[in-house]
């Protein structure tokens, strides 16, 4: 039975909700905090920030990551920046405006109260990071510098060259290191969470695989926080790291947590185009490049001249033409789709025809090479190493690539999933970005959840009590561990003929072609059938080498791909059920005469959250209606 979900949004005026809620959250006294154990899975901005802050407060924290050290969580790869409504540039920014831009950017498919809280907390994040020694870019006068990102008309993005994610993550890592030394946080690197343990309806622990020895291990706690990132590698080729996976959140879904808006994926407009079938990933070129780079294609289809030989009059700066108000800085979903439109019309460039130019010639003329190098030098170097071409002289070639997933586990205002005691933070949850995330907002959400929201709401959960201690001897732990063990033994036992990568590649092709930048009913129905067939084939024909009790990267990947083969189907089902276009979800059947996304607010102004009903059973789609009391819902326009 489909039901209406309650997000437990506090009452009262929007601007007061979080303050009042903090006041209403019961507290745990300092001396009692060490009696509570909290498991945090993930060490990125959300997970690491939550673990360190809970540690500072005095809780006993167990923090897990698949990387060999917490400093390598995938937040590290974020390039461009982090938004905050500081209004240091005096250009009219405010909490209200960041809130408005984010809700509009998400195409009116995010939850007002969450976005407002995010916007309020944004300022404290910058303060905290500076206090921790994050070397943000500065002006000569010593104050912080800002730049612009897509979908906004103010400069509110703080940055550390093209390595903002790295610097914020190193801030988190340093805070974590301090807590490890203080004994409040115990770190478990090279540990992969493979299942969630639920006892009497509450999340009480996890089962992990030690990735060095292959040993299965159990950990019990009073609450569990998942901050394991997004699931873009379901497309195989994405800008994500090769170890990014959906496994933790997917296992939680199969234990009863609802999965919200799985079809909301962000295809980033500016990645280095795919070069060949051997490729293991796509490399992002930061959105910040669109501050100074101009996107164009030749006006004539099939024009194979070198870019320098195409005169100005024969170039189409398609974003500037279609969206004069925002120009090259339209939001990502719009820029990505516009590039696809040009390439589909035969105007794409490069060997494959699936690329457009991002040109810095004007910026270099206006600012000089040194200024451009100071802003984007590291990105230009990366580009040159991969493409063997110099973007100071020849325009970059770029094409959209899967980058971020707005969907994730459903959480209420407290970031608590439908399993009590299971909290979900950062990209792993669905809550703040609606159908499209604006640039520089992922780092903001990760830090807000990790430093500020999780510590408060987890304390509230623990303080309310009523859940006695559970140890790993509890039979539920044994049962879950047995299941996990059987699953991994089964993967090894198939001994088929095709590698894990073969299947992952095939899945990625189906997802990109049919559940990618443009979707339609026929394609989605085909995708569902093809993914089912692929999954069936996987468990009969995959070849996983080595043993369970060993360092075995192929086995790790085998487990993750098995989960992607299930998640992909749910993404297609969600995309099929959402008979509208909104943000990054573009259904070919639903667009305006100009080719823009056409929402159906009457029937789809809601979050779709899916409930697992058992393998082979159809999942149930529940809804959380979205109510806009403070913002006027309009057709999104950047013209």
């Amino acid at each position, binding site marked *: 039975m489909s039901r209406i979900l309650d997000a437990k949004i506090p009452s009262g005026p929007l601007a007061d909700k979080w303050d009042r809620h903090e006041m209403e959250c019961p507290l745990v006294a300092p001396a009692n905090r060490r009696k509570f154990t909290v498991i945090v899975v993930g060490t990125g901005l959300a997970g690491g920030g939550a673990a360190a*802050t809970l540690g*500072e407060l005095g809780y006993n924290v167990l923090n897990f990551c698949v*990387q*060999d*050290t917490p*400093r*390598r969580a*995938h937040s*590290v*790869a974020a390039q461009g920046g982090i938004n905050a409504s*500081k209004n*240091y540039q005096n250009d009219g920014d405010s909490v209200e405006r960041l809130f408005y831009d984010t809700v509009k950017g998400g195409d009116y498919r995010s939850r007002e109260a969450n976005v407002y809280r995010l916007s309020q907390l944004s300022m404290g994040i*910058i*303060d*905290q990071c*500076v*206090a*921790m*020694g994050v*070397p*943000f*870019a*500065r*002006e*000569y*006068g*010593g*104050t*912080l510098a800002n730049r612009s990102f897509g979908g906004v008309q103010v400069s509110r993005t703080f940055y*550390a*060259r093209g*390595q903002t994610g*790295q*610097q914020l993550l190193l801030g988190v890592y*340093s805070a974590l*290191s*301090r807590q*490890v030394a203080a004994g409040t946080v115990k*770190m478990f690197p090279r540990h992969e969470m493979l299942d969630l343990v639920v006892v009497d309806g509450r999340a009480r622990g996890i089962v992990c695989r030690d990735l*060095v020895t292959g040993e299965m291990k159990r950990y019990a706690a009073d609450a569990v926080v998942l901050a394991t990132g997004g699931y873009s590698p379901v497309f195989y080729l994405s800008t994500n*790291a*090769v*170890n990014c996976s959906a496994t933790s959140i997917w296992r939680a879904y199969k234990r009863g947590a609802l999965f919200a808006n799985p079809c909301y994926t962000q295809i980033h407009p500016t990645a280095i185009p795919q070069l*060949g079938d*051997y490729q*293991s990933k796509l*490399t992002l070129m930061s959105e910040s490049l669109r501050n100074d780079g101009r996107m164009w294609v030749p006006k004539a289809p099939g024009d194979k001249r070198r870019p320098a030989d195409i005169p100005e009059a024969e170039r189409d700066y398609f974003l500037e033409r279609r969206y004069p108000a925002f120009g090259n800085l339209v939001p990502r979903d719009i820029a990505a789709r516009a590039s696809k439109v040009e390439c589909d019309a035969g105007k794409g460039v490069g060997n494959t025809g699936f690329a457009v130019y991002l040109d810095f010639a004007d910026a270099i003329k206006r600012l000089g090479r040194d200024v451009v190098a100071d802003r984007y030098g590291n990105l230009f170097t*990366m580009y040159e*190493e*991969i493409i063997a071409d110099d973007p100071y002289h020849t325009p970059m070639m770029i094409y959209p690539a899967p980058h971020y997933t707005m969907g994730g586990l459903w959480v209420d205002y407290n970031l608590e999933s439908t399993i009590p005691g299971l909290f979900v933070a950062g990209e792993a949850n669905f809550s703040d970005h609606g159908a499209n995330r604006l640039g520089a907002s992922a780092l903001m959400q990760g830090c807000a959840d990790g430093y500020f929201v999780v*510590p408060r709401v987890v304390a509230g959960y623990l303080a309310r009590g009523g859940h006695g201690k559970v140890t790993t001897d509890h039979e539920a732990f044994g049962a879950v561990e047995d299941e996990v063990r059987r699953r991994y033994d089964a993967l090894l036992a198939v001994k088929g003929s095709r*590698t894990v*990568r073969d299947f992952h590649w095939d899945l990625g092709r189906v997802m990109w072609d049919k559940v990618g930048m443009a979707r339609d009913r026929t394609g989605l129905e085909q995708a569902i059938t093809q993914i089912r067939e692929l999954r069936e084939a996987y468990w009969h024909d995959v070849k996983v*080498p*080595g043993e369970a009790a*060993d*360092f*075995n*990267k*192929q086995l790790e990947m085998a487990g993750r791909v098995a989960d992607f083969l299930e998640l992909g189907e749910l993404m297609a089902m969600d995309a099929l059920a959402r008979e509208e276009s909104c943000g990054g979800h573009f259904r070919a059947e639903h667009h305006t005469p100009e080719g823009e996304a056409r929402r159906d607010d009457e029937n789809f102004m809601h979050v779709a959250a899916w409930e697992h009903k058992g393998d082979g059973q159809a999942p149930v789609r529940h809804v959380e209606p979205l109510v806009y009391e403070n913002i006027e819902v309009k057709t999104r326009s950047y013209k």
Partner: protein
Amino acid sequence: MSEMTIHLKIWRQARGETKDSQKSQGRFVDYTVEKVLPEMSFLETLDLLNEKLTRQGQQPVEFDSDCREGICGTCGLVIKGTAHGPNPKTTTCEVRMRHFRDGETITVEPFRAGPFPILKDLVVDRTAFDRIQQQGGFVTANVGSAPDSNAVPIPKLDADKAMDAASCIGCGACVAACPNASASLFVGAKISQLSYLPQGGPERGRRALLMIGQMDREGFGDCSNHGECEAVCPKEISIENIARMRREFFKGALGGHDRKAATGD
């Protein structure tokens, strides 16, 4: 572009073989990979090899990698005798095959150093770096205690210097390249970064003593100014940071900080 055939001489070592027995039990094994394209990355060539080995029923070569765009610091191989390969300013994952010749033989080894025990094949344990960081590589600033971020202006040049040092990715190439297996560039980068900023000022002396003390305890060697670390560093961290680390150490020692706690002497 034309396909190449590449011969690889790869260090193979089973898990659990102790440090003492590394020399006797680990060994180089020869492999040949065909249909390598110049635009492929070096790790994609290893992927291709592993696909082939898996299909043939052999054990794939274990190696670490994650972001594959040079920022996470996970990957790290000694390629043709040089940490992160022959090209300057790149990580292993950024090395492209166009830098090698058709038919070339390439040796591939893990980052070797006493404090980086080999876990399996090309995978090493670098948690010693985490333990050094835990001694003092942070500013003590609890969440909620921060003043407005523009309250303390920081000269742009200092912020830029701090950023130069902070761009260290913790890959460990500096240790692998150093004849003494010193971690001075890694430790110096963190101490330097924080020394350029007003935040954490009260902890500077103590930080230097504690981090350097832990570096010694982990078994990393001393710096004798070879400069190999700077040469292989994918992020161009300057050895100036080592000089600065020494100054911080002396200031800390002379400043009356607890040297015993730092060094364990």
